[in-house]
């Protein structure tokens, strides 16, 4: 157990020191609140003020407020619709700052590079191929969910290039000492900034010449789409879940350690669903950010609210019951640490078994329930502290079955925990 703990610690330290993973992780952490803001817009237009799918179908008077819908659409469009743009700026700024450069400059540079490698005009052709009109502008497909991975890669490349070029003294314009520092700084980054934007443009040009498409199409097809397919498959997500709960088993914050990889995938899948609902299309991704939180993190990672309930039902020992009572309130907001370190689950060979088993069982059950259309597909992002039932209910756009299915998963997890709680107390008694 100790060896496993040490090995996982090493992985954790490595991931924590990795500048790229850290920048991506923090960028998503900072952008998630905006996806929740966007979700509020979606809740209004598709759950409340909607005559087909929302409250409007059973309570028509609310449709009198439908003149507000464009404004709520804008709330969604300007947040979730521009997630790729936001992530690009944030990754650039955070990576730049960790390398000791001005974060605002690096964020902006990354954004400009993204614009530089994006398709900026499109010919509208008639049936016979003659060009009727040329539309100028960067398409939303570059700046929204389909541009997330391109944005991450462009930001990392731009800042890395900038960092490398800034080290070459000859390329920095020097000002006499009398020139104020901020002015001198703006000049010293002039040539490196130019070179970064130029090089990124050249890379894009090479890709366009060789494959006949834009960088975003290339990255989307080569990296983002396969990664999302992997993450949205049941075996794929089970591997992620297993890694997260193994880390938690030795007392390390599993999600925090793998979020650099996990969040880009789960949030992209989530945002694809939100965008599909906004466009009145069908949601496709059963597995997404809210699904993960609903079917793994009820009470905290590992469905630990179920563990607390199991202790309250069957626990007889005072020390366990007092931790269960202490833990219950934080569990209702999906904070699991008191359980993890209190009973404890961490490094506890008996409780780790149901901890891992209920995690996998709950995810599989959630997947099956969704696949057979008992549980609705989730498409609304919610704060991770949203209490059980409410999370499933709201994340599925106010569908009661979303909440019910979360409770079913909670009940099944409780049944998995119960015999092990009894066994653990027996062992505690024997040890005395």
């Amino acid at each position, binding site marked *: 157990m100790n060896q496993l703990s040490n090995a996982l610690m090493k992985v954790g330290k490595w991931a924590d020191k990795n500048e790229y993973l850290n920048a991506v992780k923090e960028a998503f952490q900072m952008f998630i609140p905006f996806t929740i803001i966007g979700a509020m817009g979606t809740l209004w237009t598709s759950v409340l003020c909607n005559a087909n799918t929302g409250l409007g179908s059973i309570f028509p008077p609310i449709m009198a407020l439908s003149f507000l819908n464009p404004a709520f659409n804008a709330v969604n469009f300007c947040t979730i619709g521009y997630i790729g743009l936001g992530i690009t700026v944030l990754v650039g700024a955070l990576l730049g700052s960790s390398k000791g450069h001005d974060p605002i400059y690096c964020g902006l540079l990354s954004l400009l590079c993204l614009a530089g490698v994006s398709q900026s005009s499109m010919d509208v052709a008639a049936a016979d191929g003659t060009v009727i009109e040329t539309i100028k502008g960067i398409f939303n497909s570059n700046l929204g969910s389909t541009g997330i991975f391109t944005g991450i890669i462009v930001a990392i490349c731009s800042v890395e290039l900038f960092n490398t070029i800034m080290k070459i003294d000859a390329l920095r314009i020097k000002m006499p000492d009398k020139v104020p520092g901020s002015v001198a700084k703006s000049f010293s980054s002039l040539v490196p900034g130019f070179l970064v934007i130029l090089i990124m443009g050249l890379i894009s040009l090479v890709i366009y010449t060789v494959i006949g498409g834009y960088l975003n199409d290339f990255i989307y097809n080569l990296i983002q789409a396969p990664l999302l397919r992997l993450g949205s498959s049941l075996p794929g997500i089970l591997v992620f879940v297993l890694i997260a709960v193994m880390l938690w088993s030795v007392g390390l914050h599993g999600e*925090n350690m793998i979020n650099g990889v996990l969040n880009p995938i789960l949030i992209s899948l989530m945002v694809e669903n939100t965008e599909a609902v906004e466009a009145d299309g069908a949601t496709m991704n059963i597995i997404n950010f809210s699904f993960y939180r609903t079917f793994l993190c009820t009470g905290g990672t590992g469905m630990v609210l179920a563990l607390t309930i199991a202790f309250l039902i069957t626990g007889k020992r005072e020390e366990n019951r007092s931790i269960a009572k202490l833990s219950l309130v934080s569990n209702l907001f999906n*904070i699991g640490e008191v359980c993890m*370190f*209190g*009973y*404890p689950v961490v490094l506890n060979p008996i409780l780790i078994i149901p901890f891992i088993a209920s995690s996998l069982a709950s995810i599989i059950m959630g997947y099956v329930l969704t696949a057979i259309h008992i549980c609705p597909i989730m498409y609304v992002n919610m704060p991770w502290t949203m209490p059980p039932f409410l999370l499933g209910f709201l994340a599925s756009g106010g569908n009661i079955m979303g909440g019910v299915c979360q409770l079913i998963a909670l009940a099944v997890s409780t049944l998995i925990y119960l015999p092990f709680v009894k066994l653990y107390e027996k062992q505690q008694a024997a040890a005395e």
Partner: protein
Amino acid sequence: MIKIRLFCAAGMSTGILVERMIKSARERGLEADIAAAPAAAMEEETQGIDVAFLGPQVRYKLDEAKKICGEKKIPVEVIPMVDYGTMNGKNVLDFALRLSGREEQQ
């Protein structure tokens, strides 16, 4: 006056412990400024503090924390798992006083 900051992933779970530490400080008549913060904000949040703690679940950040706190000569330690799990504010406050060398004041 002792100023303590507790760091975890989001500053949420350590928040519960903070309340208990404040309660324990009040019982001893000790003037204390105790708060929780996300580990990502460690650079800013360690400004002018006496002791820094890491939640055990982010103990892999200890090296980085020691680097940040070392420059400012602030002692930093991981909260023992048992005290963390039982949210034992008294023990953790004792630990903080020991680390800051103020034990004798008690």
